[in-house]
């Protein structure tokens, strides 16, 4: 029997609410099975690269199985543009494997350091959600290890247990451990992005610019949450697509400088407390806003700087000090709720760097899938900010009233009572979970905290 586990303390990316578990990193599916079979009474949960902000990949007093040892690509058909990989493979790794064949991942979150399993468990979305939906739409099938020790191949088709398939997308690891999945990749012409940038002086301009930008495959806006008055809600919209061959020719003719000098910055291990305060952050936001071009189109960018700008700054979550950080990401169906949420944040004067704003397209059949039509706003806030708990609870109430939702992959503090409001099909998901895991083998700090 494989029992290579060690007690250690884990947190999510926000570095809040640590808990200890027996942690193992199986290097084969058999080892994983062995470990699951002798699970402790406090259950098991899978952990990918720990990029969720809160506690879904923690299991206090129980077993946590890291999937990063299961990272083989098991089948790749460049002609059909499909790739099958074990769940511990990272999006970054998939990107580099696909790149050599003129392919790209169909959906990438804002960091490439997430695993395929983590991306599935959160049903992640990217800057192309308005057009391509979340990752669930691009999977042909996946193999899930169920609580009874059996493996099941599921997919969206009617005879492949689509209920289990969709309940796993966004199911935060609580339906079973995804062993592998088959992804349909996107064909691209050349490995460059063609990017448009537009600066908007207030929220109305920003929303209009974002609407325009949705013509492109990828679009997102950065909003300054501190500035008040006439410039409230100012920001910068970036949009783009994989560049076409003609664009590359044009760039060569104008001999644009090579972007992305691969500079890798690291943050110091120790940061004076209080470095991130309202004033330093406001100064940063100002400089950043002034630096953005008023309008620029067709700029050449490397995919890494377009999709994963923060990956260049290793360990940036350490900047938030001992108390860590909270990310708040909600989706609201209408502009007036969005305004209220932004006003709430502004009046509390939380030191937030830029918030990310994006318009979602339609959702998918996953009962716990987060994306749904409307505006999604995501921002990082130091957990040490006074009054933060009450502020976020107030925002939650407003979001709930409007029929919006808060993202579980980012959550670390929502009220358990609001889960059924944020996820109206929670009952359906519970029924499915009762079917596949009647004895609650899969447990996490998140499932305990929110009584999922």
């Amino acid at each position, binding site marked *: 029997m494989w029992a290579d586990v060690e007690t250690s303390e884990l947190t999510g990316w926000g570095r809040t609410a640590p808990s*200890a578990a027996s942690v193992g990193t199986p290097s084969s599916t058999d080892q994983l099975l062995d470990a699951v079979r002798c699970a402790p009474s406090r259950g098991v949960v899978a952990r990918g690269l720990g990029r969720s902000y809160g506690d879904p990949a923690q299991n206090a007093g129980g077993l946590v199985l890291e999937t990063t040892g299961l990272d083989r690509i098991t089948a790749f058909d460049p002609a059909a543009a499909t790739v099958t990989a074990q769940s511990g493979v990272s999006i970054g790794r998939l990107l580099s494997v696909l790149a050599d064949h003129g392919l790209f991942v169909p959906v990438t979150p804002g960091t490439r350091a997430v695993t395929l399993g983590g991306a599935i468990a959160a049903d992640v979305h990217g800057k192309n959600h308005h057009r391509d939906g979340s990752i669930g739409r691009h999977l042909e099938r996946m193999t899930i290890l169920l609580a009874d020790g059996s493996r099941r191949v599921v997919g969206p088709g009617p005879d492949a247990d689509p209920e289990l398939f969709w309940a796993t997308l966004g199911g935060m690891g609580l339906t079973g451990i995804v062993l592998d999945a088959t992804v349909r990749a996107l064909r691209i012409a050349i490995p460059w992005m063609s990017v448009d940038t537009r600066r908007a002086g207030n929220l109305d301009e920003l929303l209009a610019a974002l609407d325009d930008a949705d013509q492109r495959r990828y679009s997102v806006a950065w909003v300054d949450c501190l500035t008040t008055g006439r410039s409230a809600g100012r920001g910068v919209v970036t949009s783009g697509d994989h560049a076409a061959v003609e664009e590359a020719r044009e760039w060569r003719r104008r001999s644009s400088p090579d972007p992305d000098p691969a500079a890798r910055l690291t943050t110091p291990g120790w940061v004076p407390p209080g470095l991130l305060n309202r004033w330093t952050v406001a100064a940063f936001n100002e400089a950043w806003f002034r630096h953005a071009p008023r309008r620029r189109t067709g700029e050449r960018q490397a995919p890494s700087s377009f999709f994963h700008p923060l990956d260049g700054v290793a360990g940036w979550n350490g900047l938030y000090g001992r108390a860590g950080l909270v990310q708040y990401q909600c989706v609201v169906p209408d502009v007036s709720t969005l305004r209220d949420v932004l006003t709430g944040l502004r009046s509390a004067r939380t030191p937030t760097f830029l918030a990310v704003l994006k318009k979602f397209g339609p959702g998918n059949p996953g009962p716990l899938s987060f994306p749904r039509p409307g505006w999604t706003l995501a921002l990082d806030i130091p957990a040490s900010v006074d009054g933060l708990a009450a502020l976020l609870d107030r925002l939650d109430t407003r979001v709930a009233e409007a029929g919006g939702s808060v993202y579980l992959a980012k959550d670390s503090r929502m009220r358990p009572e609001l889960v059924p409001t944020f996820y109206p099909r929670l009952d359906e998901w519970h029924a499915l979970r009762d079917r596949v895991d009647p004895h609650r083998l899969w447990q996490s700090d998140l499932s305990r905290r929110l009584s999922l």
Partner: protein
Amino acid sequence: MKNALGSPESVALVGGTSQIGLAICRELALGGRLRRVVLAGRPGERLDAAARDVGGWVVGDVRTVDFDAASTAGHDDAVAEIFEAGDQDVVVLAFGVLGAPDGMLDDPDQAVHVAEVNYVASVSMGLRVAASLRRQGHGTLVVLSSVAAERGRASNFVYGSSKAGLDTFAQGLGDRLVGTGVRVIVVRPGFVRTRMTDGLPEVPLACDAEDVGRAVAHALRTGQSTVWVPAVLRAVMSGLRHLPRPVFRRLPV
């Protein structure tokens, strides 16, 4: 589970009638997540009243558990009962006795009692609770020490020495538990206006039980492991600590 902003869903107060302990519970309830409270104490009207009081501001399960600090033989059962309802996110050790001021020079039996309740019982409960918290892989043990632990004083040296023992114990326990998911917070209040200090002459920097509640809630949120109440006592005590004995003895504190 405690959330990212330090709001617990369950709290056990050992010394279930302690005014400071109840103020901590009340402050934690303001986080809006508290659904289960256990009050462990000597059975009686005071404990029942405390439970009714807590029931007024906690929506959920409030229960009492029999606990006598002076009889360590019963501590295993008490801890088992405290954890019966499920995980405990925060356990507060708030029992304690002050002893008669100045009186203990001629009353070694009372002094032994003070030492037993404040120190021996805390070691006994501290270790047992820590074992349960370790099993669940998370949780915070809040220990009520005192500024009196900092330096022996003519007026309350038995109490002070018992708190000094407790304080050193709790600091070391916290260090021992690093990496287990369990945290220990050592709280050092100055003069707090509660039943314990009722009738004593007030000293400078006196505060209320609610001040201690707020400071503990703040520490849970920020991960602070030593809490002085009021906070300025930390600076004050670091000065007083180095005063020569004859000078310290004459201070009106």
